[in-house]
């Protein structure tokens, strides 16, 4: 088995960190953009780019509440995203056991 078997959407350092961090939340919970940024340590621009890719793949959802300076964007992993991380972890484990 080669690294090609790993989900290319997750197999990128920044996106792996995003998905793994959001997966630590209980199902049905969301994390604010700023807290996620603090936890992962990415720049806002970099984080937005990766979040968009994951959102386009339906791995996460984002929701904006409020207006103006008080607005807040929260992101949450979808069931599809959680399943994708489970698959990624299982594939990675199989791959490492075979090395």
């Amino acid at each position, binding site marked *: 088995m080669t*690294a090609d078997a*790993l989900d*290319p959407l997750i*197999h*990128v*350092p*920044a*996106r*792996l*960190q995003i998905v*793994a*961090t959001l*997966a*630590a*939340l*209980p*199902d*049905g*919970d*969301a*994390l*604010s*953009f*700023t*807290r*996620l940024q603090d*936890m*992962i340590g990415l*720049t*806002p*621009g*970099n984080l*937005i*780019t*990766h*979040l*968009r890719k994951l*959102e386009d793949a339906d791995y996460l959802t*984002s*929701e*904006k509440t409020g207006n103006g300076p008080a607005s807040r*964007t*929260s992101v*949450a992993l979808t069931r599809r995203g959680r399943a994708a991380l489970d698959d990624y*972890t299982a594939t*990675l*484990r199989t*791959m*490492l056991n075979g*090395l």
Partner: protein
Amino acid sequence: MNPMSDMSEAGTYEDEGALDPHGAARLLARTQRQAQRELDFRSPWLSLIAAGAALIGFGAVWLSVRHQHPFKGPTTAALVVLYLLVAIRIGTVLYAHHRASAGVSGRSARLERAEGVGLAAALVAVYVLMIALVGDGVGSQRAFYWLYGVTATLIVLGTFWAARSAVKEDWPELGMSMAIMLVAAGSALAGPRGVWLGDGVGLCVLLVASAGAQMWLLRTSRSGT
């Protein structure tokens, strides 16, 4: 409309930094460990603070009542120490919880609010029952009042946490909750004086053991990557 579409600084970063499987596994484990640690308000230090508070607070009350014949109840100074330490315990938990839950929204936040209301109602019910029993002349008044107060409070807190832990399938916390209930019930057998010593020592031992277990789990998860 994409909620993130109006955020500035959106760059055009590529999928930089290729990962080999070993590197991916290490990054995944490190990120999961870090996220769990940052999103969970519990910590070994919090348990150690609680252990110290339980030993000193209950110990202060025990020292003030151990030679009382007949039993008159804790002295004001002992109660000040106890309530001060209880306040410190509540304050440290609230602070840690506030830090851990910053930016988190959704189902669990709503559930925690509902749990808080349920717990408050249970504690109020215990104290109302206690007042009713003492007012009705049950027990030896002061002795019964203090014995029932400390024991019932610990049993209610233990029951609440046990139910919460069972729903979350958090077996170590369920075991801890049941142990607290056993300590509370067992210490009550020692009477209105001994109950304070039993609760203080018992809770301190449980909380130190809990802190040790948490530290061991942290170390194991680190060395397992």
